[in-house]
């Protein structure tokens, strides 16, 4: 029983990480109806920027905030420059552009920073909270930060005019134009927010898996599984999905399929959800227009 609890709790810990990246994926999907294959690399790149800032002597939290801001700008720029020309292009063109973004960010990072693994600091103390044996302070802290981000996003969307405008654009771009909303900039804002959320995720993940240009590969897959499971347009669902995927991965890995095949849990979940209930547990049903 104790071993099982351990698996569940450490599953929640890794789940918190998947949840934070899944939140970024959901943000982009909500506003643009696109699946951002490059989300992981954007988060990774932002984390490297944070590393540079910290290495240059900046304190952790100032570097954290500045990175989030820079990531926001990066997201806006990517949307305006790279994505906008293909917004209405056939799906294949969009997918190709996303993949191009993925590989360019990945290789640019490798070029600038080299492929040697680096450590990334955690703002949380090294000793586990209350001396517990299940989760490190960082893992608990990461979950906490993810929940804070979720609450901030909720407040933003529900209670601010800008958030309302973004919800409007996500539902009905044409009517949004008719009330004067600059739809193009709302999309860019969505990307900026998603990039910022991704940067937070990256900075929470890096202390655990170490900083390396390829650190996000598997995690992106888990994040996709989490986002799909929770509902690709539901931020709350993404977080719940993240925890669920983390726990499932650990439990199935320990008791059913062995630790080697954990990624296939993500694969199975993705295909399973897409086939059985594409809107996920908490998402709204989308009718594919014929």
């Amino acid at each position, binding site marked *: 029983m104790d071993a099982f609890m351990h698996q569940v709790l450490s599953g929640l810990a890794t789940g918190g990480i998947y949840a934070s990246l899944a939140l970024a994926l959901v943000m982009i999907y909500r506003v643009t109806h696109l699946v951002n294959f490059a989300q992981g690399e954007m988060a990774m790149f932002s984390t490297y920027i944070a590393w540079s800032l910290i290495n240059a002597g900046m304190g952790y939290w100032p570097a954290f905030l500045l990175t989030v801001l820079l990531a926001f700008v990066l997201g806006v720029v990517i949307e305006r420059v790279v994505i906008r020309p293909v917004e209405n292009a056939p799906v294949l063109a969009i997918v190709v552009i996303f993949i191009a973004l993925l590989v360019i960010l990945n290789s640019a990072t490798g070029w600038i920073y080299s492929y040697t693994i680096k450590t990334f600091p955690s703002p949380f103390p090294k000793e586990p909270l209350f001396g517990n044996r299940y989760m490190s302070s960082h893992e608990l802290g990461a979950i906490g930060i993810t929940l804070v981000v979720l609450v901030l996003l909720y407040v933003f969307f529900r209670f601010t*005019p800008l958030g*309302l*405008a973004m*919800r*409007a654009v996500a*539902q*009905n771009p*044409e*009517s*949004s*134009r*008719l*009330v*004067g*909303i*600059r*739809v193009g900039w709302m999309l860019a804002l969505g990307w900026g927010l998603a990039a910022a959320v991704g940067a937070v995720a990256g900075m929470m993940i890096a202390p655990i898996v170490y900083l390396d240009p390829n650190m996000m590969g598997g995690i992106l897959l888990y994040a996709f599984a989490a986002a799909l499971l929770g509902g690709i347009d539901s931020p709350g669902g993404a977080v719940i999905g993240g925890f669920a995927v983390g726990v499932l991965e650990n439990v199935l890995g320990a008791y059913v399929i062995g630790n080697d095949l954990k990624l296939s849990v993500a694969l199975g979940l993705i295909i399973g959800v897409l086939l059985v209930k594409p809107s996920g547990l908490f998402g*709204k049903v989308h009718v594919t227009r014929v």
Partner: protein
Amino acid sequence: MALLEVKGLRASYGPTRVLHGLDFALDEGSITAVLGANGAGKTTTLRALCGMVKTEGEMRFGGARIDGRLTEDIVRLGIAHVPDGRGTFVNLTTEENLRLGAYTRKDRAAVESDLARIFTYFPRLKERRRQQAGTLSGGEQQMLAVSRALMLRPKLLLFDEPSFGLAPLLVRELFEIMRTVNQRERVSILLVEQNAAMALDLADRAYLIETGRVVLSGPADEIKRDDAVRRSYLGY
């Protein structure tokens, strides 16, 4: 000076040309009706004014060129469009829909008083302010669409078949509100309508469109009194 001037407006959906060179104008404070059969190009005209279709030709609003501009920029000049199909944000609440109408305005206090005024025109909307707009009845959604447009405090209101699918009592109510808004707040109105009789009662001027061209124009009461025109073009 005419508030809205359109010269040689041509519009196409892809390769299909729908408007073949429309000319018309509206004066400030007037109500203008655009009449015609289905498929004549009435809706396209309104969409063209808002930059929602590809156009050629000249369109001026308050003297400034609006052809070729983005919808959201045209709207910010003071044109509110109530589209056919209403364009309600169905997953947002009634109140959120209304507040979105005022999205571009900066005068917060005036927005609140406008909202209160809308609720006095349409008490049913006030009852349902926190309900999802998609759950409102057809008539209520039409009221909501009109109100949302009013929240913009527009100089020009474009109505696309506002009577469509509404019970006659509601249509009368709606047209009364249009008259009130026009008289009390000097909002100009461009009305596309199938119900020619009611439109001509309300309007000052009317244009008749057939296959993308203006075939007749003049003061509304003249057209109303002209039996030949009524029978051949308006079917009554």
